[in-house]
């Protein structure tokens, strides 16, 4: 050890150890840590862990992120006449539950999370006998009743009521079934002591936000991912030796040529208009080995608690891989994210195309149309007026790595 400083640090270490020796870390944090480990191990056991690969003929992971935002954004004054539930019941303390369809192929793992923070609300893991066990964010069991149609009604933990002020819940699932790349979202049930109201994902829209939602500014300190609404970019560019991202504006003609070269007669369905598009590429994103082509998802890697959050289908039949990271665009105003790309139920992102041009090639993202962006709030303003950033990230396991770059003006 090096002289004085080594001795000083050893002394500090001893003093700190004495300082912590009276604490009951296991008692204070043990349950939480155990729960987090259980969830991550369960996800990995289900085959959606980092780097896990499905072999030919097996099923791609189906992961879908459904905006549950704006709970009750539809008018709810009419009892029984609405499809949406309100988070602001007028009487009683609301009890939330979710009706989850599990009879959709072989869903191995599903969860409902607070998309803004990544907090897990409900975790469901398929057991060997085909039944499901549901736990809360700490790994504690939740009451769940299985219906005759194969669905479960899961009582959400009491703390879920705190989600009334947040913007978005997301539903994810991992399936091992070729038949179901699109997984139906759960139905949210609110029972406030009066009429019980239900809402399915389709009726939720992420914008506008419900009244009373904390401002993005108020939440900004808690936003740590450039994929998330409210993130404030401290710099125009962040790149490391591990991950970098570049972006350039291309003409519609150049984009068509590139799509023709890559996809031929299976060119993406996204219409290429006459306006300029953005072509972004990430460098350093993990690639797979073997005869697997992987793409990336648009999903924030931090939202998956270390699990994989997207799905891909290779251009080579029967070859699939789980995805290690995300590559996406965000719209900003004054350097703050006010619009993001939210994939549809089937993972599709109209207006945006993701691709790797071959095995182990760097992933590319093409923003064809700004309609790919979804405003975080009703006050985000016109999408056309926003500045754009391309953002990338992956779970380096351990640790999340992010990079971003401001898209130059056309």
């Amino acid at each position, binding site marked *: 050890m090096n002289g004085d*400083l*080594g001795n000083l640090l050893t002394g500090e270490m001893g003093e*700190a150890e004495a300082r*912590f020796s009276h604490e009951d870390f296991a008692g204070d*944090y043990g349950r939480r840590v*155990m729960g987090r*480990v259980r969830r991550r191990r369960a996800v990995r056991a289900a085959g959606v862990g980092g780097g896990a690969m499905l072999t030919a003929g097996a099923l791609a992971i189906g992961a879908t992120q459904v905006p549950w935002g704006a709970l009750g954004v539809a008018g709810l004054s009419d009892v029984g006449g609405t499809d949406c539930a309100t988070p602001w019941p007028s009487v009683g303390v609301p009890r939330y539950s979710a009706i989850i369809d599990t009879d959709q192929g072989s869903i191995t793992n599903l969860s409902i999370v607070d998309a803004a923070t990544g907090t897990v609300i409900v975790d469901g893991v398929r057991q060997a006998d085909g039944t499901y066990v549901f736990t809360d964010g700490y790994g504690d069991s939740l009451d769940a009743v299985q219906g005759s149609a194969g669905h479960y009604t899961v009582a959400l933990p009491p703390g879920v009521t705190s989600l009334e002020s947040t913007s978005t819940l997301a539903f994810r699932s991992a399936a091992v079934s070729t038949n179901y790349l699109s997984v139906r979202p759960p139905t949210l049930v609110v029972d406030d002591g009066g009429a019980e109201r239900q809402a399915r994902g389709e009726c939720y829209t992420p914008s506008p936000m419900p009244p009373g939602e904390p401002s993005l500014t108020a939440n900004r300190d808690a936003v740590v991912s450039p994929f998330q609404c409210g993130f404030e970019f401290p710099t125009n560019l962040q790149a490391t030796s591990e991950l970098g991202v570049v972006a350039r504006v291309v003409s519609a003609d150049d984009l068509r040529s590139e799509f023709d070269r890559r996809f031929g007669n299976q060119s993406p369905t996204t219409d290429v208009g006459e306006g300029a598009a953005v072509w972004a590429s990430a460098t350093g994103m993990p690639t797979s080995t073997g005869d697997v082509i992987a793409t990336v998802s648009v999903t924030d890697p931090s939202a998956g608690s270390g699990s994989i959050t997207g799905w891909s289908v290779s251009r080579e039949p029967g070859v699939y891989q789980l995805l290690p990271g995300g590559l996406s665009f965000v719209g900003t105003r004054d350097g703050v994210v006010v619009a993001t790309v939210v994939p549809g139920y089937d993972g599709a992102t109209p207006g945006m195309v993701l691709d790797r041009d071959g095995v182990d090639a760097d992933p590319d993202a093409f923003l064809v149309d700004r309609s790919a962006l979804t405003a975080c709030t009703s006050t985000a303003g016109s999408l056309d007026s926003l500045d754009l950033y391309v953002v990338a990230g992956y779970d380096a396991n351990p640790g999340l790595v992010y990079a971003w770059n401001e898209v130059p003006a056309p």
Partner: protein
Amino acid sequence: MRGMHMARWEPLLEQVMRERAPRLLAYAAMLTGDDAEAHDVLQDALVRSFSRGRRFDHVNQAEAYVRRAIPSVVIDRSRKRRPVPRDPAEQHHVAAQAPDADAAMDVRSALRGLAPRERACIVLRFYDDLTVAQIAAHLGLADGTVKRYLSDASAKLAGLLGSQIDLREENTVPVTAPLVKGRR
């Protein structure tokens, strides 16, 4: 007896948290300069270490693995966090009181005056006795970057603690730390 077979991770995780937490928290606190954050860091390190399917044969092995994960967790957390400009008055306060106080008592304050990566490099170099190359591999940084962090941090610490920091070693960059505080 719990953990007799050591095949299941739960008893071992529980044992690490019950028996080794003070030492791990102390290490995390030294790397973060913040006792409260040390608790968060240790939780993340435990989760990472036990979520990866690795089998530990003994609590010592598990503790070592968790301990090794802590610097990476600290760096990752600092990456995700927006840098908060340090209050200049706070730095002056630290610097002003350092020469007259006992060095061992001041080291925590001095560490707080470093940036997260500087602090990590200093702890790994001078407490864990790692070489520059080992630190670089551990933190996922380039050798030159580690040398720069060590150089900058050593200069700051020398100023704050008034002690000469010996970086003369094959794998470290020579540093001429300002010896303005008198103590050698």
